[in-house]
């Protein structure tokens, strides 16, 4: 005889069957039934202070573990609070499963208390979503949600469950892999690349004289860092890692040119511009990377490897499109290249190209002006000290803005899955909750969030969650009392007309705020104090720490390709302007 369960019990058991070890959430009216069987479950639930926090925690967890993050909240306002993280996860292809309560089936459409059209609202920001109308469907819907979120191009899925569906009885079952596949006849992600195309790509790679490996987040999603390194070392082709791919290739490697794009290194940006072949691996020619598309890498042929066919040719038509999983495709590519070499083909000499690239790297390192004695701290200086003081393998998380760009520039990423940030959506307030999620996923690692004072004020309340749940994250606020990136644009492109951009030099008191939330708070405004403060923060492991670095308010991020300009028009640090000719 089949076992009778309530929908709520079936939901929690299904999550256990999906090996969910932790979920982030906040209960409320319609989701209440699901919280009852949770008491007996081995799944750890982390009670957040705002549903957006639950979503970003799930993302941070997924970023560092590769496993789907789970956020569970109630209907209406809770569901709408989950919208931002879902959209963030959709833009950055993060596997995540959102579970929302819904008003009882009989009340749907009546504008009942805390009712909203959750599946309608989240339709365009989830890979798939589903309103469950029968308790009997729950195990299958949960399996589908996890299967869809984690296969193909990963992304968020959402399950919307009316209260009575959670309360009704059902006969427990657990669908097999085949049953799940058969239930989704329209979903057949293609992981294996086209053999002929891969061979063609191998020939182009060997023939190229000025090639660049343009590595995006898809390489990390495919767990392909190892084979990427093999490919780069075999062919001696330089590598750029986009904002979403920092850590996919070690920054200390002689072939690594750092980040391309709007605030990328001059070397990475210029190498792409001058390339005769771009091998795009899990990257999508985002506008922040290409600059003005018509001026982007004008002489380059394109090999584009992406698991999502819709990314092929959206921005730049590839000469060789390969739809597939980056790891499988790179493995096949390596085989094809080795076969060609064994059959007597030779690779074009990339030596001159490499020395040209090395020349750029020597001439155009990241640069900033050290602060004058007695003047405010430089954010880049703080980052260098943070980086140098961080234990090996530290995971660094950021919000969005100047501090994010500086962190991506100045941190040395040596290992994959040590960098967590909001790339596509650019969600201010991402850092604190995402860091908490990352620490939950990797409790063995030190987790530093580098945040801005603007970002911090959007989601700081989750530090209460972190204190109570004993999740000892470290937050470094690069506090310039401005919305720094907005200030930079107003200074550079709006004639220094500063509009609604100054937050406050005095409020809030970040130290007191940190202490009120159960954290250790440290304020630093003297360059001499920076190292000691970082050491102290690194030594505290029983609670969260917040370090308030009071930094110069007028510091700008360089290099910079102004929006809408060609990458050839990159703006350098003023100390390098005189060497500009080298980039021609």
């Amino acid at each position, binding site marked *: 005889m089949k076992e009778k369960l309530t929908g709520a019990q079936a939901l929690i058991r299904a999550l256990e069957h999906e090996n969910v070890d932790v979920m982030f959430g906040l209960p409320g009216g319609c989701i209440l039934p699901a919280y009852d069987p949770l008491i007996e479950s081995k799944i750890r639930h982390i009670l957040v202070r705002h549903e957006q926090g639950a979503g970003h925690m799930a993302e941070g967890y997924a970023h560092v573990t590769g496993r789907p993050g789970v956020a569970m909240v109630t209907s209406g306002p809770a569901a709408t609070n989950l919208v931002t993280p879902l959209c963030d996860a959709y833009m950055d292809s993060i596997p995540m499963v959102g579970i929302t309560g819904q008003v009882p089936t009989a009340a749907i459409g009546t504008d009942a208390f805390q009712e909203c059209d959750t599946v309608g609202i989240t339709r*365009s920001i989830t890979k798939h979503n589903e309103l469950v109308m029968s308790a009997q469907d729950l195990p299958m819907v949960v399996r589908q949600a996890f299967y869809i979120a984690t296969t193909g191009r990963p992304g968020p899925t959402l399950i919307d469950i009316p209260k009575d569906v959670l309360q009704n009885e059902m006969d427990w079952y657990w669908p097999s892999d085949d049953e799940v596949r058969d239930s989704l006849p329209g979903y057949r992600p293609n992981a294996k690349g086209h053999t002929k195309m891969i061979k063609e790509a191998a020939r182009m790679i060997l023939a190229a004289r000025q090639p660049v490996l343009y590595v995006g987040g898809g390489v990390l999603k495919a767990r392909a860092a190892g084979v990427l390194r093999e490919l780069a070392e075999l062919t001696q082709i330089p590598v750029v890692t986009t904002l979403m791919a920092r850590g996919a290739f070690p920054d200390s490697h002689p072939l690594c040119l750092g980040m391309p794009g709007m605030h990328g290194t001059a070397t990475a940006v210029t190498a792409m511009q001058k390339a005769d072949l771009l091998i795009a691996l899990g990257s999508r020619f985002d506008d922040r990377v290409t600059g003005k598309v018509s001026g982007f890498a004008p002489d380059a042929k394109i090999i584009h490897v992406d698991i999502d066919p819709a990314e092929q040719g959206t921005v730049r038509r590839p000469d060789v499109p390969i739809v597939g999983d980056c790891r499988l495709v790179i493995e096949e590519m390596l085989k094809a290249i080795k076969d060609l070499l064994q059959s007597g083909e030779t690779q074009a000499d990339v030596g001159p190209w490499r020395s040209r690239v090395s020349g750029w790297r020597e001439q155009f390192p990241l640069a900033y002006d050290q602060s004058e004695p007695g003047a405010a701290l430089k954010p880049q200086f703080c980052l260098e000290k943070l980086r140098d003081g961080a234990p090996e393998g530290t995971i660094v998380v950021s919000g969005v803005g100047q501090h994010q760009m500086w962190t991506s520039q100045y941190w040395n990423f040596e290992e994959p899955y040590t960098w967590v940030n909001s790339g596509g959506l650019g969600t201010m307030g991402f850092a604190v909750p995402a860091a908490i999620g990352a620490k939950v996923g990797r409790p063995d690692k030190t987790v530093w969030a580098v945040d801005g004072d603007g970002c911090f004020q959007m989601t700081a309340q989750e530090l209460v969650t972190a204190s109570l749940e004993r999740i000892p994250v470290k937050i470094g606020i690069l506090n310039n009392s401005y919305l720094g990136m907005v200030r930079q644009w107003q200074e550079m492109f709006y004639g220094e007309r500063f509009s609604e951009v100054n937050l406050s030099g005095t409020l809030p008191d970040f130290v007191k705020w940190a202490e009120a939330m159960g954290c250790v708070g440290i304020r630093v405004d003297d360059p001499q104090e920076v190292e000691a403060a970082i050491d102290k923060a690194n030594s505290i492991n029983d609670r969260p720490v917040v370090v308030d670095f009071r930094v110069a308010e007028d510091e700008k991020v360089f290099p910079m390709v102004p929006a809408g300009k060609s990458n050839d028009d990159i703006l350098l640090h003023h100390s390098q302007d005189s060497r500009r000719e080298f980039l021609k």
Partner: protein
Amino acid sequence: MSGSNPYGQDSQHHVLSVLVQNRPGVLARVSALFARRGYNIFSLAVAPTEHPDYSRITIVVDLQSAPLEQMTKQLFKLIDVVRISELDPRFSVERELIMVTVKATAEQRSQIVELTNIFEARILSVGVEALTVSLDGSPSAIDDFMKALHPYGIVESQRTGLVALPKLDRAAPSSAQSAASSNTTHSSQGKAR
């Protein structure tokens, strides 16, 4: 068939025949995708197929708003979309239905009946001062019919939007193959039940 383009002088239309799982919200998913990506639709018709698990959505798209390839690739990302057939107007049979209520005084009635006969339309309802007629045909034939009726005064009209299937080859033996040669089909790799 007249040479005029029923979708506007400079427009370039194409027909997508989209087989979807017959589930709640699937039409919303498809139309939301078109709205979100800025793809224009001339018409859209949806109905169940011979198989109860599937519906077919026939969409006439405006190729000036986006490349066809982008539309099909994005559509195919929807989990509920099982198969997409691109029907090139040159290699498909297309039909649309219109119902028109036209003013018809006693004197005019016979003229309208004559027009109805010429176009092989049908009279569905007769009123004191109006007639309701229906016509199925190609979009341009329907346009022509509307032009002919216009002077009498159109009270109201309703078009269904286009439905289409691949044109069959008259030469034996492999008609299906020939249709496939000019109309592309995107299908999930697995069995399409």
